[in-house]
């Protein structure tokens, strides 16, 4: 990890939400930071090329775009790779992770509507041979203002 300039640190920390909806948003950011617009654009370009930021854009509410749920499965270690591959093979699955717990496979299933979601869950259960826990979102206690990065 390289050292990040003061400007980069501020771009990364202070603009994770509330991007200006003016015709020239990067010029507005530049004015706030007291630098040239080209400096802001070049810095963002570099951070994006390096993969430190994935994009400047939108994150959508998971429960407002299609139907989705979090799924957990308890899979014997010796069978985990096979099952994980089956799960990942479904186009509706994203964020498929191993976690340290008896329930060791965790993934998110997103479909265009609830009927399709249920269909996919049944197919996954059938093909993997393990019961799954369907844990849909009920309530969110959180306002997403981004994540405060510490530079020490």
């Amino acid at each position, binding site marked *: *990890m390289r050292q990040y300039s003061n400007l980069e640190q501020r*771009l*990364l920390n202070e603009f*994770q*939400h509330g*991007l200006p*909806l*003016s*015709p*020239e948003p*990067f*010029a507005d950011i530049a004015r706030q930071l007291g630098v040239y*617009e080209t400096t802001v*654009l070049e810095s*963002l370009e570099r951070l*994006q090329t*390096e993969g*430190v*930021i*994935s*994009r*400047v*854009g*939108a*994150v*959508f*509410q998971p429960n*407002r*775009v*299609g139907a989705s749920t*979090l799924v957990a499965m308890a899979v014997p270690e010796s069978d985990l790779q096979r099952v994980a591959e089956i*799960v*990942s093979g479904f186009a*509706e699955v*994203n*964020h*498929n*992770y*191993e*976690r*340290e*717990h008896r*329930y060791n496979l*965790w*993934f998110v299933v*997103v479909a*265009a509507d609830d009927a399709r979601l249920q269909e996919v869950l049944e197919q996954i259960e059938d093909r993997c041979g393990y019961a799954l*826990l369907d*844990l*849909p*979102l*009920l*309530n*969110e*206690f*959180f*306002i*997403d203002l981004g*994540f405060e*990065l510490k530079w020490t």
Partner: protein
Amino acid sequence: MDMKLNTALDLDQPLDLEGALIAAIGEGLPLVTRPYAEIAGRLGCSEAEVIDGIRSIIADGRLKRFGVIVRHRQLGYRANGMVVWDLPDDRIAELGRCIGRYSFVTLCYQRPRRLPDWRYNLFSMIHGKDRDEVIKQVEFIVSQCGLQDVEHEILFSNRCFKQRGANFQARLAQVTEAARHG
């Protein structure tokens, strides 16, 4: 991958303007002086329509965050713990808000218990530079929110088998919107 997604989600349907706009901002703004004007050019509408369109998507709560999307791992935040809590049902809103207000907590959701297999009803995601930092942050939450008697577990992530972000979401948003508007 895209081919597969196409089949699964039937992405061949024509998109309306809002669906196309959701897809465009999900994929990210072009880093140019007038990004909304550039998107407008691609979609065949005006810059003002793009800006107003984004405003209305924000206003109705579909957009969670609009700005610089940072990859924590790239910045040295390598430990990721999903902390699950067994909160008393009648205090879940109060305690959930307490847990969700710390800057190192990036998600805080109520999900159903599945008894007897699964007792936990609140899920929070905590990022740290390493495991010790995550553990310390969890201890801090326990003391600040008074959760000494609440059962909880930290599930650290291990292997990542699949991760797909914005494009997937944006494409899904496209078809969802297209379906909604027939």
